């Protein structure tokens, strides 16, 4: 099957049931997309398929046929980081960093769809992405910054 990954043409011949996560990590060797639960419960594996955030651990290879897959490695445009990546650095969001590829990809999808989300929109969109280190407050502040929504209270 043929599809695109971070703008490049790719082909895959193996088991169509294999989750995209394991193709991306083990076969394409792009380890920015993380394995956290394998069950769609944590969001660490979030990538974009045709611009929309999906859990790569729940997306079978046969479902990406002809699609456009983007991983965290493909989010920046060349050397220009996505505004969220800059905001993440600005707010010193990451602790261990393990969840953050998924958090950024999820937030990028939210902003692509809704450039000016309310705090509630942010909460709903980000609810599926666990950060065991507990960086939620800074994630929210970073998203608000990019959205131009200063929200209410608490931004660090």
């Amino acid at each position, binding site marked *: 099957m043929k599809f695109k990954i971070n703008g490049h043409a790719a082909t895959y011949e193996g088991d169509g049931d294999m989750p995209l996560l394991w193709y991306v990590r083990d076969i394409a060797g792009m380890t920015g997309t993380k394995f956290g639960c394998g069950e769609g419960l*944590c969001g660490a594996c979030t990538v974009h398929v045709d611009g929309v955030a999906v859990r790569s651990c729940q997306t079978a290879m046969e479902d990406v046929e002809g699609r456009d897959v983007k991983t965290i490695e493909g989010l920046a445009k060349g050397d220009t980081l996505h505004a969220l990546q800059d905001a993440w650095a600005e707010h010193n969001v990451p*602790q261990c960093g393990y969840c953050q590829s998924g958090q950024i990809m999820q937030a990028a999808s939210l902003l692509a769809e809704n450039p000016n989300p309310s705090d509630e929109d942010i909460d709903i969109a980000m609810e599926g992405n666990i950060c065991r280190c507990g960086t939620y407050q800074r994630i929210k502040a970073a998203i608000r910054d990019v959205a131009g929504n200063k929200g209410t209270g608490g931004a660090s």
Partner: protein
Amino acid sequence: MNVPIKNVSRRSVLKGAGAATGLVLAAPMISNFVVAEATGSHNFSSSVYLSMDMDGTAHIYIHRVEMGQGSRTGLPQIIADELEADWDRLVFEPAYGDKKFGDQNTDGSTSIRKYYDIFRAAGASARMMLEQAAAHKWGIAVGDVEAKNHRIINKLTGASEDYSAFVAAAAKLEAPGADAVKLKSKAKRTYIGKPKQNIYMQDIITGNSQFGQDTMREGMLFAVAARPPSVGGTVTAFDKAAAMAVAGVVDVVELPALTLPAIFKPLGGVAVLATNTWAAIKGREALNAQFEGGPNGDYDTKAFEKTLWQNIDGKSTPHLKRGNCAAALEVADKTYGADYFVPHLNHAPMEPPAATAEWQGDTLKMWVCCQDPQSVQGAVAPFVGVKPEDIYVEATLLGGAFGRKSKPDFAVEAAILAKQAGRPVKMIWTREDDMHHGYFHTISAQRVEAGVKDGAVTAWKHKAAYPSISGTFNPAADGPSGFELSLGLTDLPFATPNLQVDTGAAKAHVRIGWMRSVANIHQAFAVGSFVDEIAQGEGKNTADLWMEMIGEDRMISPASDVVGHDPANPQGPGYANYGESLERHPIDTARLKAVLAKVVDISGYGKTMPKGRGMGISVHRSFVSFVACAVEVAVSDDGTFTIPRAWIVVDCGTYVNPDRVKAQMEGAVLFGISIAKYGEITASGGAIEQNNFDSYPVSRMSDSADVEVVIMENDAPPGGVGEPGVPPVAPAITNAIFQATGKRIRRLPIGNQLAI
């Protein structure tokens, strides 16, 4: 300053091998230090914490691991500050496991508190040697030169030259020595005490950071294993052919059965090796492995909880005794009593454990998300027949750890399998593996009684029963150890004249491990809750009662009340104080009261709250730091609740990176929310019943609070930061719930207790 620094490069220069090595500094102070002899061919491995190239590039060897706590940013800040370094001319060298680095066990909130003096001295020595070389070259007194931002200034003329001009000459000098090291004044600090961005930031936000799960080696196989559900269980049957029939599966290998004590040994079971993780997981399903339960095969946490309460009712072993609690309770005007329960918990770091092993001939190389590369060396060696020091172990970044990754059972598995396979192997733990086979936080029952006479608390009697961490190392261990009681019970900060801490028996049936803040979790929950219960009963403000019970400003020396303590025998029963002396890190009641007063101040604790809202408070000293926490809860009619705001005040003495201290406090609040709201590991028939984040939930965005952090300013030596934020959070939450609803939570997690 008591840190002798020796210039290791001098000898190599004399040997004629130092031309490219530049300045190499070692701090041979820690007892298990072996300062390497410099050799020209391995110029970097010859250094311990700091070396400088001829072009002035400074290499900082960060021997501790990074799991989100910020040590790999904070430690370089310390050295760079004293070195007067330009941050952009530093190269960070993550260290591999080697005794020459001293203690690498990144655990117990120790990285900054144990290495602050050493790293300062290393940086200062190098700066002084560069200054001396410059003074000599310019023919002026050393007092007339000053290092600033990677240059030496001639104070007489104002001229300056880059460090690179002096490296060669400095490398030939003797290091100044312990007594001569001159540290910078606080006013001149450039990095210590100033916020600094995580050195891994760019890699993290672009997906380039390398965690243990991310290691890739040429020709590598991916392994997962089916392990016995109970500790000490064994494999009875598995279908190798079925697993081998799965496309991509390369081999099926039985792992050695566990012989107790568990320590850091692998659990046994059957591994499936494949060309990708998915194939390995499918192969494991096809195995249909069967197990025999072994000595813990009927562990049932419901039944065990009954045992714990029986043991609370039963025989008591005394650990701390001051005055006479029984008599004081007898004559009290009013007595209080409560029972508290905290279940097993799992670390559940975001990154499940993973380790990669590669044999290059007889040499073993490993990449492991471990908290201590030296303990990986020690754990792996006996299983593969090589000496610990001959195993190269690189600590990758850790996707969270919280204590789980101090136990390298998973690394041993990788090493065994790679040897067998003759190819590199990455052992991957899935989330289910992490839930089923953790080193769990213990399961605890505590009974607390107090007596009040003439308005004052005159007696506090505390009994705890829980399996000890010691059980992982010695299955005969039966109940809390003195070490664990030192984490919040034998150091109760109360002036109360009658004080007693007893324990009841409890044997371990899973591997009990240490999890972020360890026994402080349940002990501070009971203490923080019970102070609130007494305050409510007495109609007092809880913060005021804390202040009364803590009493006058003083330094507490708990050991004198510890049963069996003999000052002449420091190895006997006593008070551990997190491995620090009480002189350097006292239990200073003034500092404890100050964080409490501050949190009351910023949170407005004590004010009247609207219906359905409540505030709670608690305070606790752990890892030689002092933390107070206040939270506000909003409880709905259906019993669900949120935590809109939390306030946390930390006194960790001298701090290095205030932004990371803040981040650790914010994270500790969220970790505490997970414990209070959700955390519960249960076992039935020897098997853990939780599988993934559906059955073991942790805090998510909607659970998040807006956290306000205050760091107290003082010049005390650095205390811990990674762990001490956690203990006061859970009791602050349940105290807030009591204020909001009148319902007292004595059993964690809160779960749906408010709905009933």
